[in-house]
C-alpha cells in the first residue's frame, strides 16, 4: 500500500479516535498530526493480529498519555494554568442545536476531568462501545484492571456530573420516575 493510500485510509480513523479521546482541545490538531505520523511510520510493521482500529487506538492512547504528561509539566513550569489543565475549544455554532452543543460540551469537559487512564476506558467502553477485552488490548493491561478503571471512572464521572441539569442525579431520576 502506498503512503498516500495508507494515509487516506488511516487518517480519518485516527482523527475520529483522537477526537473521541481528547475532544476539541486546542492541541487536537497537533495530537492528530503526531498520532497519524506515528501510524503511517509504523504501518509496515502492523501484522494484522488485531483489528486496525484497535492498533490505531493504542497509538492514539499512547500519544495522548505522552503528550499530557509533557504538557502538564510544561504548564506547571510556566504557570499558565494551576493544574496544568488543557482548555477546550468552544464548538462552532453551525451544527444542529445550541442545546445539544452545550450538552456535548459539558459531557466532554466532565470526561476530560477524569484521569487519562480512567477517561480512556470510559470513552472506549461506555461511549464508543468497545468491549473490555478490546480495551485491555488497546491499553495493554489486564481485564480486571480495565474493569476496575471502568468502575472508578463511572463513579468519578457521576460525581462530576451530579449537579448537571441534563446528566445530573436529579435530572436522571426525574426522567426515570416520569417513565
Amino acid at each position, binding site marked *: 500500500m502506498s503512503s498516500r493510500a495508507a*494515509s*487516506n485510509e488511516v*487518517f*480519518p480513523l485516527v*482523527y*475520529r479516535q483522537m*477526537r473521541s479521546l481528547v475532544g476539541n482541545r486546542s492541541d487536537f*490538531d497537533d495530537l*492528530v*498530526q503526531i498520532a*497519524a*505520523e506515528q501510524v503511517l511510520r509504523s504501518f509496515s510493521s502492523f501484522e494484522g493480529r488485531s483489528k486496525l482500529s484497535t492498533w490505531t487506538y493504542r497509538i492514539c492512547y499512547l500519544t495522548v498519555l505522552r503528550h499530557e504528561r509533557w504538557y502538564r509539566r510544561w504548564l506547571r513550569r510556566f504557570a499558565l494554568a494551576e493544574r496544568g489543565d488543557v482548555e477546550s475549544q468552544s464548538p462552532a455554532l453551525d451544527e*444542529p442545536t445550541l442545546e*445539544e*452543543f452545550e*450538552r*456535548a460540551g459539558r*459531557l*466532554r469537559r466532565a470526561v476530560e476531568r477524569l484521569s487519562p487512564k480512567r477517561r480512556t476506558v470510559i470513552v472506549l467502553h*461506555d*461511549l*464508543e*462501545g468497545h468491549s473490555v477485552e478490546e480495551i485491555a488490548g488497546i491499553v495493554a493491561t489486564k481485564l480486571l484492571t480495565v*474493569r476496575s478503571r*471502568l*468502575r472508578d471512572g*463511572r*463513579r468519578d464521572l*457521576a460525581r462530576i*456530573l*451530579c449537579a448537571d441539569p*441534563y*446528566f445530573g*442525579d436529579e435530572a*436522571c*431520576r426525574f*426522567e*426515570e420516575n416520569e417513565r
Partner: protein
Amino acid sequence: MNPQCSEPDLQMAVLAEARDAGTLTPDCALHLEGCAACQTAAERMRRMVSTWSADQVDDDAVAAAATRFQARRVAAHAAPGWFDVVPFALAGVAAGYLLLASTGTIGLPWKTRPAIDAQLPTAVRASTAAVASSATPNDLPRFAPVFAATDEGVKWVRARPHIETTRGVAPLVDGLRLQLNQGESASVALADGRASKVEGPCLVEFWSTPMEVGGWRILREESAAEPSVPVAITPTAPAVPESAVPSNKKGGPGSREGGAAAALNETVSSSARDVAGPGANQVSVRAWARAAAALREDDFDAADRAFDELGHALDPATRDAARLARAQLWISRGREAAVRPVLEQLAQSGATPLVRQRAAEFLHR
C-alpha cells in the same frame, strides 16, 4: 451514583444493556425495578451515549484535517528538522568554548603551555592550579615520563618545554617524576629556549608555576645511590670576593644594574655562609661554589645554571635565596621585567626575613 448500588455486578450488566439499548435479562430487570441507583445510572448512561453519538465529526472536517495533515507532512519532510538547529548548536558550542577558555578550564590553541595541558588527564590539569598557587604538591599524582616514540613526536615535544635524556625526549607535565641514575644526566629545556642540566643520581619532579622565572619548578631529591661528597672539597663556604661581581658593561657602579650586581655578591656570600654549617647539604654547597666561581669569571650561563639548580632545592631557605640571587643576576643584565613576579612573590612569602627584605628593596628601587 448516589446512593450506591448493592449489586455492582448486576449494575455493570444493567449499564451494558442501557448503553447498547438491549433487552434486560430477568435478573437485571428485577434488580432495576428496586434499585434507585441503577435507575439513575442507566438513564445517565443512555443520555451520555445519545449525546456522544450526536457529537460526531462530519466528513468535511475530516477531509480538511487530512489536507492540513498532508501539507504539514510535506513541509516537515522538505527540510530536515536538525537543519534548523545547526546555527544554534554552533553558537552554543562557540559560547561554551569561550567560557571555558576565559575561565582557564581549557587552553587556547595559540598558547604553548595550555596546549600541552589540554592533552593531559583532568587530574593533571587540576593539579596545575594548586601548584601555581604555591600549594604543596605532595597529595597530587605523579607521572612517569612519556618519551616520544617517533621522529615527528620528538620534533613536536622539542618545540615545547621538555626533558631530554639518553632514554628519549618527554614533554614537561605537572607531577612528572624522573629517576636519574649514576652517571646519567638530563637536559631540561623551557619554552623560551633556555636549558639547564641535571646530573644523576637523583629524583626530579616538575611542577608548573607562574612564580618561577622559566615557568617551571624543578624539585630535585638526592638519590640514596649518590656517593657521599668528598670531604676535601666541601669543608667551608666559598668566599666570594668583590671581583666575583660580574662586570657590567651596561651600567656603571651607580646604575641600577650595578647596584644589582653588588647586591648579588652580597646575597651569594651570605647564602654560601649559611649553607656551610655542619650537616649541610653538600650538593647545595657545591652549587653555591659553582655560582661564585661563575660570577668571578663573569660566566652568566654557568651562574644561571647553578642558581637554577639551587632554586629547585628542597630546602626552602636555600631555594628562595637562590631565586633571589638569580633574579639579581638577571637584573644585572637588564631583565627586570622578567623577574618582577618572582621578586613580588619572594617579598611576600620568602622563606627568610632577609630574602623578603631584599626582594622588597629591589622592588622599590
